[in-house]
Each structure stands twice: as C-alpha cells, then as structure tokens.
C-alpha cells in the first residue's frame, strides 16, 4: 500500500469523524487542544482504524501525546501495518 494512499484514507476518516473538512491542512496541530478530537472522537478513530486497516490499538495503548495530530496518527498506523 502506498504511503500517500494511507495518508489520504486516514484524512478522509478524520474528516468523517470530526466534520472538520480542512483537517488535512493542519497536519501537526494538536487535535485535542483545537477541540477537534475528544475522548469519544479518539475512540471512534480507534474503532474505524480497526475496521479500515485491521489494526487493533487498545484504548490505553498510546498516550494522548502519541496520536494528537494527523501526522502522528499516520505514523502510528504505518508502524502497525
């Protein structure tokens, strides 16, 4: 799977979860600080990542700082594929 392809799919997923269309333009912003993601959004993300990519990340596996931006989420997914 090409890297850009993964990135695009994750951004689409995030737009779907957060309703924030421009999320792809701010890839290093802290999504929790910007109120784009909250605990429930984060959980929805984990569930969707499992459905889309078949990777299971337990709710307490990662600290918030490890997946609080678009780029970090992409990294965490790539590590596990």
């Amino acid at each position, binding site marked *: 799977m090409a890297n850009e392809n993964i990135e695009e799919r994750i951004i689409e997923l995030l737009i779907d979860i957060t309703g924030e269309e421009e999320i792809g333009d701010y890839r290093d912003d802290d999504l929790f600080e910007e109120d784009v993601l909250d*605990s*429930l959004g*984060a*959980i*929805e993300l*984990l*569930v969707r990542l*499992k*459905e889309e990519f*078949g990777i*299971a990340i*337990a*709710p*307490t*596996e990662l600290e918030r700082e490890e997946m609080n931006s678009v780029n970090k989420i992409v990294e965490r997914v790539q590590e596990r594929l």
Partner: protein
Amino acid sequence: MSFYAEPAFFILLVPIVGIAVLLGVNEKPLGRYGLGASVLMLLLLFSRSIESLVFFACYLVFSLRLARWVSNLFSETARTDSDSSAHSPHPKRIALYRIALALQIAPLAVYKVGVLFQPDFLGFIGISYITFKAVQVLIEIRDGLIKDLGTLEYLYFLVFFPTITSGPILRSRKFVDDLNAKRTRDEYLQLLYRGAGWFMLGALYKFVGAPVGQWAMWFLPSVIGAATPAAATGANVVYALGYTLYLFFDFAGYSHMAVGLGYALGIEVPRNFRAPFLAIDIKDFWNRWHISLSTWLRDFVFMRFSAAAIEHKWFKSSVTTACIGFVLNMTLMGIWHGLTVDYLVYGLYHGLLLAGCELMQRKWGFYKKHRREKWFKLCSWAVTMVAVVFGMALFSGQVFHNPLG
C-alpha cells in the same frame, strides 16, 4: 495505625524515607527496599484486625493467581492455537477472561453489599482502591499491553504503601517503568526535591486547610442560625461551601503527600488534583478533581463502552453514545463509593451533568460562537462551581439527611 493521620505514621516515615534517600543518592535500586518497607507498614496498618490482615493476604494471593491465569489465556502460544488473528481471540478465551474479571471484582462487590447489612462486614482498608489496580492489570493483559509482569513486581504494585488506603490509583506499566528506571544521583535528588515540595504542600492542606473548612462548615451555620427560611438556606449554603473546602483540602492534601512519599521511593505517583475550582465546565472539573479515578473510569469504562457501542452500532449518533456512556460511567462511580442513596444520586447527578455538557458543546450554536470569549468562560465557571458545590452537598449526605437539624 492509620496512615497520614497519626503522629506515629509520620515518625516512622523518617527512617523509612531516610534509608530510601541513602539508597537513592548512591544510585542503588529502590524496589526490593520499597517492597519490604510496604510490607512492614501494612502489618502496622492492619495490626488492629488480624482478620483484615488474613483477608488482605488471601486477596493478594487470589489476585496474583488470577493475573497468572489470564496471562496464560492470552500468552503467545495460546494465541496461535486456534485464533484467526491475534486481535480476535477465541470466544471461549474471552468468556474465561470475563469470568476472571468478575472474580477480581467479586470481593469488593460482596463487601459493598455486606456493609449495608453489617457495618463491620469483612473487608480491609483500601479494598476499593486495590480493586482498580488489579482490574487494570487483567484488562491490559487481555489487550496484549502487559506481557511479562513478574510476581514480585505485581505484588509490590498492589501493596505499595503510600497509595494503599486512598490512591492516587497507580497504573502497573508506569509503576514497573519507574521501578526499573536507573536514576543518576542528580535525577533522584531532583525527584526527591519535587516530592518534598508535594509532601509539604499536602501537609499544609491537610493540617491547616482542612480544619479551616471543617470550622466553616460547623461554626458558621450555627452563627447564621435558622430563624427565618432565608437564614436556614444561607446556613445550608455555607455548610456546603465549608464541606467542599474541607473535602478538597483533606483529600488533595492526602493525595499530595502520597505523591511526595512515592517520589522519595522512586515511584512517580500521578497527580490527583489540579486546581479543580478553576474548572470552566464539568468535563474540565473531572480532569482536575480526583484525576486518577476519573481517568481510570474514562479509560476502562467510558472508552470501552463507547468502543463497543460504536463497533456494534448500538446507538444512532455519537452524541447519544457519549451521553449514555457518561451516565453509565458516573453511576458506576457512585456505586463504587458505596451503595447508599447519597452516593448513587451523586454519581447519577454527575453523569447527567456531563451528558448535558456534551449536548451543549455539540449542539448549541451559541456555545460554539462564544465559548472562547472571557465573559462566556466566566459565566460557565460560575455555573460549574454552583453545580460542583451542589454535588458536594449530595456527596456529604447534606441533601438527604440535613446535618443542621
């Protein structure tokens, strides 16, 4: 001996911390020593009741056995036998794991029901808090996050004396990391200085702040009296405010001391309070008040429930999922505090507040437009504080059993 209350406890801390400091500054590991010190302190804690001590010892053995059992269920060899993938274990294993979880919670559940009928029902100090730690371990073994928890490590995690009676609730992986951390002399000294600061602040809270709160809740209402309905209401409000101050200083004071003591033993005990009276909404409040409890419930109840709800599409919208999750989460917190009307209503009340907050933040255009403005934050803070103090009045039993007669 009761912890953090009797002079004997503080006097004993002098040699216990003294030896820890000697080990720490000489860059020696603190684990074995901390375990030994904890065992000694727990013998003193339970010295008044041999039955409690025996029950506690049985509980430890029982918890160690359960963890071993669940470890074996989800070990690498067990996984490859019959699973299609590592992430979807065989249903039979999941069923056994659920039985293990139920068994781990059973002693606390039996105790909570038992004390309703018999105040001296068999239990031990800290049974409520130790249950959180043991349950976390089982869940994270199942998640594959805990792979090799040694028996002595797990035992020390459970008996770690600074937090045994009332938390802060430790997490095992962080605890083991701290235990195995090799600190230089300077790193240990820095930790020790920070710990000393926490301990002194905690002592100030508990032995100065808390008595002031107590004085306010008992003395001021009697001055106001209850001659008119307005005075009676005023006395009740002052009592609730006094109780809120008392509970904060007492519990935050205890927690800060536990943090400080933990640091001296090389364990970075998590902070339990972060200026809760500056919270601008009720979610913010729970990120600042009894933090180790609220984050534990968030991680192991709210998030698990929400994940299951989203995965199996139990509800139409994510707002509904969140609201139901909050009510469930906080009602469980109320039950954990005790099976009395006061605690149950307290839990339900906070669940509904959180659900209301969620609805406001997601659905109310006015909120979205003005939430970053100063005046809005100020109003939101004021409403939050009123809600918090009323919650404290529920928690203290003031609402259902008027203490002012």
